């Protein structure tokens, strides 16, 4: 090994990293993060309300949109989960259409 070059590389690397310091609030941030639960449930209250509304008038084994599917309790789970995932313009439009459809019938 070339000792001169080794010393040069080591010195430059140490000097360069010494120009930076870890954040001053690092310890506080760490302890705050550690105190939090590892997983936080993300809730969408508004979308959950819409999902509840859409499913309110559904018959057992029927979706909010009038299609008949297998009559089992599990059926509603994926639909509800999908709806509560996000709210988009198309979903709001669907909501209106479904509401109108129910009122008309």
């Amino acid at each position, binding site marked *: 090994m070339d*000792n001169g070059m080794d010393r040069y590389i*080591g010195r*430059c*690397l140490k000097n360069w990293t010494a*120009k*930076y310091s870890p954040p001053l609030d*690092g310890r506080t941030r760490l302890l705050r993060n550690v105190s939090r639960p590892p997983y936080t449930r993300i809730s969408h209250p508004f979308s959950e309300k819409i999902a509840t509304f859409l499913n309110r008038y559904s018959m057992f084994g029927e979706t909010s949109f009038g299609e008949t599917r297998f009559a089992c309790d599990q059926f509603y789970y994926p639909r509800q989960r999908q709806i509560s995932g996000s709210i988009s313009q198309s979903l709001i439009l669907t909501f209106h259409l479904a509401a109108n459809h129910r009122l008309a019938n």
Partner: protein
Amino acid sequence: MEIVTDQELVKNLQAGSLEALGELYDRYRQLVFRTALAITSDPEAASDLLQDVFLRLFRFADRIDVQRPIQPWLYRMTANLAYTWLKRDRRWLRPLENLAEWLAGSTRNLTHEVVESLDDWDHLQRAVASLPVSQRMVVVLYYLDDLSLQEISEILEIPIGTVKSRLHYGRLSLKKDLSLGVLIDGDKLADLSLETT
């Protein structure tokens, strides 16, 4: 004031002590931060990795062997997380960086005067950052953290021959990038010309 050993702190940590975590953080934050910084070349990423390493230390404290020193565990976790960060978060940036470097003119094409005007530290950091990740980690652990080949082998969980090989090729690349020539007194570079490239 009584000095608490690392072993005692890790034991307290395994019992869920946040004080012990804070104390270990204060002791080893520089070690973790500088290693992460040298590997990623990004101070913000190094700050995030510093948090990640100590969060994992807390979460996986029960898996740590109290009888062994804590530093190798911290080095291993830092290297692994930095590696993941580089592979995941920087992958899409690489072509852009290459393009920017090409547009700005590669450092390999710098003239003698330009090379001499650059700050040696920054120049070396850029050269280290241009190394492949596997070589960079070995170079950083060897030159920055002053670890032995055996220690690096254990931390990265690779054979010692691989460590030697990566270090060898890393040094060659650095020498080429830095255009290193003859050294005077082993301290100051005498020749930064491009004759050796």
